[in-house]
């Protein structure tokens, strides 16, 4: 009896420890970013593009990078969704156990593990061969490639959790697989699909290496799909690399803005998925 109770408490203790470890890491990161970034954060940072002497610690802001990042990650996520949703439904609903589905999953898992700098280099070579310059479009395509496996596998996992009985309830009424997928399965899995989209967006907006060559960097606001754009991760990277403490501090402000964007999107999508899961089975 004593041994069993000890076991219970021991594993409960480990669980609590793990939770604290994760929660305090999050807390610590947020604390550092806020502590270092907040003092340099001001209205000009959020509403202006860099002025002449910005990288020497003079006036201006990072609006170019904020807007650029939202465009890049938003576009990349949208493109990944357009490609990923049909793939996830294909392997999850149409051919659950087929060889093709296994191969698709394996390919996505390998792609998931590819470092983002490789995506960046790949996108860069592709663009060179097509005679393109670093641009918003190039960045979006590269980010979509980076996000695709994450989003698709996350969606695949939730689609696979759908009880077969639920699909069969739809088939029993004479529904096709398409109707079952896009009218029933999607409703059941919507919260999970939103989480998958968010996961991919978070990965996309935070990635520096893949946009380094493909989207470039500019002090101006995004001018068009074929113009280079700035991004927050690169803003952090460049500013941390300067020898001026004021500019380095602004790197933390940029990081704070980036964290804040991800936070807002997380909370917003959580709220949304709670509302949308009202009809779903537990």
């Amino acid at each position: 009896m004593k041994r069993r109770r000890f076991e219970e408490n021991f594993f409960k203790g480990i669980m609590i420890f793990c939770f604290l470890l994760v929660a305090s890491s999050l807390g610590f990161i947020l604390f550092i970013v806020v502590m270092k970034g907040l003092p340099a954060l001001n209205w000009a940072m959020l509403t202006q593009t860099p002025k002449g002497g910005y990288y020497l610690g003079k006036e201006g802001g990072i609006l170019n990078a904020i807007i650029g990042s939202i465009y890049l990650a938003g576009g990349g996520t949208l493109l990944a969704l357009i490609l990923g949703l049909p793939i996830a439904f294909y392997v999850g609903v149409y051919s659950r156990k087929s060889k093709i589905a296994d191969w698709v999953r394996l390919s996505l898992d390998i792609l998931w593990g590819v470092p983002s700098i490789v995506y960046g280099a790949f996108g860069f070579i592709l663009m060179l061969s097509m005679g393109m310059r670093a641009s918003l479009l190039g960045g979006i395509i590269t980010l979509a490639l980076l996000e695709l496996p994450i989003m698709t596998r996350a969606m695949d996992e939730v689609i696979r959790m759908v009880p077969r009985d639920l699909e069969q309830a739809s088939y029993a009424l004479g529904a096709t697989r398409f109707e079952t997928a896009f009218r029933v399965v999607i409703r059941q899995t919507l919260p999970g699909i939103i989480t998958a989209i968010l996961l991919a967006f978070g990965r996309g907006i935070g990635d520096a290496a893949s946009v380094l060559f493909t989207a470039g960097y500019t002090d101006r606001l995004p001018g068009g799909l074929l113009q280079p754009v700035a991004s927050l991760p690169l803003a952090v990277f460049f500013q941390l690399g300067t020898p001026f403490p004021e500019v380095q501090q602004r790197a933390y402000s940029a990081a704070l803005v980036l964290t804040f964007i991800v936070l807002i999107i997380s909370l917003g999508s959580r709220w949304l998925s709670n509302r949308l899961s009202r009809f779903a089975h537990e």
Partner: protein
Amino acid sequence: MDAHVQTIDLNAYYGAIPALKNVNLEIPKNQITVIMGPSGCGKTTLLKTINRFLELTDGTRISGKVLIDGEDIYGQGVDVTEIRKKAGLLAQRPYPLPMSIYENVAYGLRIHNMKHGRELDQAVEHHLREAGLWEEVKDRLRSPATGLSIGQQQRLCLARGLAVEPELLLGDEPTSALDPISAQHIEQRLLDLKNEYTIVLVTHILRQAKRLADYVVFMYLGEVVESGPARQVFESPQQERTRAYLEGQF
């Protein structure tokens, strides 16, 4: 006899394991046919061949014919969705679609493009009444169907199935997950509906079979041992194995 469904030399296999062996049956129109037998005898498998559900399980194979209204439902060029629309299914456990109560009933009508606007509202009400659920849900049609009790959910599934205007109703032990009162509700509905539908019910509850059956099929180890009008089978079974089953020997 006016056969609605007919099987001819029907065999079914899970991989190499035979689940149905040379089943030749005629299921009469507008009656309740009860398929009974011990677990694993192939009752549910037989039922699943009638709405082509067996093929949803990997590794299943079928030979022989199943005719509905004289048409071979495994023939070439047969639209499987039309077959399933014709043969409504009431499953063992109710599975409401992840939508509102209203949308659950409207779903089939929408996908088959059968009703729109006010007609749709009327059809939803009609079929909820037919399933004996209308009075309980009329004030919360837009609430999630998953919020209903399991007995109500099963009646909702009945309404949902009836909405696409099937000819046949297949029940795969549709009361086994329900409490006695809810089970009684469903049984009563089936009795009410048999004038308009041909009902095929799988059950392992002998008393339920006796309450509902007009026609009985007794299966054992994938074979049909005996079939015939309920009274005849229950009162003077021709086969020793049927007699033994009815006496509760297995």
